[in-house]
């Protein structure tokens, strides 16, 4: 089986859980013998033909333009980083930046050209929604437009059985590819605009998400929580939805042995500092706990648009040097901070899945996770609390600080539990989704 896969994040191009999830999933799918042509938002027009598990790390690339490809092959790169730089992968993608400041709409996706591709009324409607809403002056929208227009080339020139696209940024590309190739489309929902925005969100993104979900042959939701969300908010055909939880695998180089930084109990927030992740609830909990246990330390690891507000609020609450910020951390640093912490908190307002708590549990941290999360469906050895119940979260942290033995035991049990969760099973479920989708598609088109 061969898959044309569209995603906005893939290591080293990574800003959050999407990249981590795609990486784990792709490796496991490759291990099952599924071939994947991966398309990323690269500067140059390339795709990545992945055939072996190791390809997920080395990322062999093919330029669509044969002249450029010859040139690329002639280049000698001393490091992977150098080669990826050449292709145009660097830094962090903005996939989860919110689209604010709506400016004048400019219809930059060539409407007529697109429209000619679609024949049925339903298709025209879907497309009209996408083209009408994939407009705007933001850098991100422009990048999505470009990515989508490129999809046409890949859709025509590559050979594949099925299309798999992750999150709204790649849905327009997926829709176009399906239309051109007449191959079935599987959309994967890692997060919806409702989760990210913590409120109404961007109308354009809602429309694109809705159009994509309508047009897809199958929709994979990362949790029951997310499936519920798309059923109630987008009202799509529930028969199309399949739930496949994410997994987490520690990399082989990871060292999980504790290496403390602080003598006091260390409580960690790890993730993007955005409304969705509930960092303000973390701050509230810290303020309450520190009144009882001034030796505790609260660490906010990550960056995001709420970082400045959180920093200043923590200063206003006079939490002294007990509430600290690491800023953006690279992989190695993330592991260092996990090794240094005792308790992990995920107070997300809305978390479709949440891989980061699994990682924290793999490092033996005792986890307190929001009930409003998908990850709460797959783990038992963690405290599950409503994100808004600051009182209960604070009491739980206090209890754990006062009973360090219990805290350690809970952490170990959580670690054991998470070590049983593998991407292999995820890939097997996805393979079933692929084959059923293909079978249904062939049936309905014959």
């Amino acid at each position, binding site marked *: 089986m061969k898959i044309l896969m569209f995603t906005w994040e893939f290591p080293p191009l990574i800003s959050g859980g999407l990249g981590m999830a795609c990486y784990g999933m792709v490796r496991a799918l490759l291990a099952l013998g599924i071939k994947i042509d991966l398309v990323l938002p690269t500067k140059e027009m390339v795709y990545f033909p992945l055939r072996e598990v190791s390809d997920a790390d080395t990322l062999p690339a093919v330029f669509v333009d044969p002249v450029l490809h010859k040139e690329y092959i002639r280049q000698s790169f001393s490091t992977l980083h150098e080669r990826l730089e050449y292709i145009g992968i660097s830094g962090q993608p903005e996939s989860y930046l919110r689209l604010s400041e709506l400016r004048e709409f400019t219809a930059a996706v060539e409407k007529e050209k697109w429209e000619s591709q679609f024949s049925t009324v339903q298709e025209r409607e879907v497309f009209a929604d996408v083209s009408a809403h994939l407009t705007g002056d933001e850098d991100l929208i422009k990048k999505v437009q470009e990515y989508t227009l490129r999809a046409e080339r890949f859709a025509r020139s590559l050979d594949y059985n099925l299309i798999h696209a992750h999150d709204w940024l790649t849905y327009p590309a997926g829709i176009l590819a399906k239309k051109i190739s007449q191959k079935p489309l599987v959309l994967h929902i890692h997060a919806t605009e409702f989760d990210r925005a913590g409120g109404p969100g961007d109308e354009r993104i809602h429309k694109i998400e809705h159009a994509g979900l309508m047009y897809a042959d199958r929709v994979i939701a990362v949790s029951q929580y997310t499936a519920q969300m798309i059923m109630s908010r987008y009202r799509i055909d529930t028969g199309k939805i399949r739930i496949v939880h994410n997994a987490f695998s520690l990399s082989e180089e990871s060292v999980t042995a504790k290496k403390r930084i602080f*003598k006091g109990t260390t409580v960690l927030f790890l993730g993007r500092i955005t409304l969705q992740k509930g960092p303000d609830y973390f701050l509230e909990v810290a303020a309450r706990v520190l009144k009882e246990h001034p030796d505790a330390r609260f660490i906010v690891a990550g960056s995001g648009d709420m970082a400045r507000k959180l*920093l200043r609020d923590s200063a*206003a609450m006079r939490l*002294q040097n*007990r509430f*600290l*910020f690491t800023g953006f951390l690279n992989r190695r*640093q993330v592991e260092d901070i996990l090794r240094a912490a005792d308790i992990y908190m995920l107070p997300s307002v809305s978390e479709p899945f949440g891989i980061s708590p699994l990682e924290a549990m793999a490092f033996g941290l005792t986890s307190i996770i929001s009930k409003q999360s998908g990850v709460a469906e797959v783990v038992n050895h963690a405290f599950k609390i409503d994100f808004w119940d600051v009182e209960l979260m604070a009491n739980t942290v206090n209890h754990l600080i006062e009973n360090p033995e219990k805290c350690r035991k809970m952490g170990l049990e959580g670690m054991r539990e998470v070590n049983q969760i593998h991407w292999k099973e995820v890939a097997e479920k996805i393979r079933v989704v692929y084959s059923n989708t293909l079978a249904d598609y062939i049936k309905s088109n014959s």
Partner: protein
Amino acid sequence: MLNVVFYFQVHQPHRLKHLNVLDVGKNIDYFDDHLNGQVMRKVAEKCYLPTNKLLLELIRNNQGRFKVAYSITGTAIEQFKAYSPETLDSFKALVDTGCVELLGETYYHSLAFLYDTNEFLDQVAQHRELMQSEFGYYTQTFRNTELIYQDSLADLVYEIEGFKTIITEGAERILQWRTPLYAYKNYSKDINLLLKYYQLSDDIAFRFSNRDWPEYPLTVDKFVNWIDHLTLAEKEGRNQFLNLFMDYETFGEHQWADSGIFEFMQHFPAEVLKRQHLGFATPKETQELANYQQEALSFPSPVSWADAERDLSAWLSNDMQHNAIETLYRLMDRVKQKGDAQLLEIARKLSTSDHFYYMCTKYFTDGDVHKYFSPYDSPDQAYIYYMNAMADLEERLS
């Protein structure tokens, strides 16, 4: 007679590294020696060495009639020794002329006065010892960090033997209709007060090279004529003091050499001394020269020489600054209880006011000044690095 009283502030902080939470507990040095050395060598080359050379010449050429005062912080002296010993030697040569007064202040250029009286007294004593050991000089005039002053400071300084004069900002909200040209007394009449004449001081310190300023270019002739005019109001023979207080880095660093600032200074003393009723004095001499009953001035709330507000807002106006400084003085107590001399020195280096200045979020014109002086990208970054140092310091304590 009107006496021009020059006082120059000489200070360099120990700037912090970009400390991360992950650095905590690794026993790393907080201070960015590389950057600090770089800054010191640059400022020495552009300002300290050429200005000291010029002033030494001027003092020698004017047979004791041209005088200046310096306040040199302990942290500056430490960095002279580390990165520019020739600068320290050139200051010693100046002090040796006998025409230079050295002022007393906190060794660490700190805000200790506002938070910890004992720490303040310790730092003042430490600075006085340093002036004694480096220059053989016994300080008699006091200037608090950034000219911060209020009534309670005078009470405190009065208790320290030997300080008879305090210098501070001539803030309008205190002076009201009065002129800063006379020597005043503190509210309890124990101490001689000298107030900065900020308009003329700032003409040199801030406006000298500003081409949008209507008075640009500022010539010696023009400036001395303005000074001359100030004497017209005095008809009873009372001695006046024109207090020109500024950062020493004005010369060659804030106002670049090509602005003509050195030429201005070179010709200024001769032009002043040409005129019979104008001269120079040092701060400590003013007490004797004040040939009149000095009016008492009360400063119920603090003033400083910083920014348009002339208050504490440059260091203590937002939550980050307050949280940072409160953390510092809480830890300072614990460091003292522990009695670890090395940690105490580190904590004191962290008490330097510049660390809080970098966290200032006031914008508009003053924000530009803050930005110019800050080695960090933003006030938030400065705060993060500082709090990480605080976190590490506390770990070293327990």
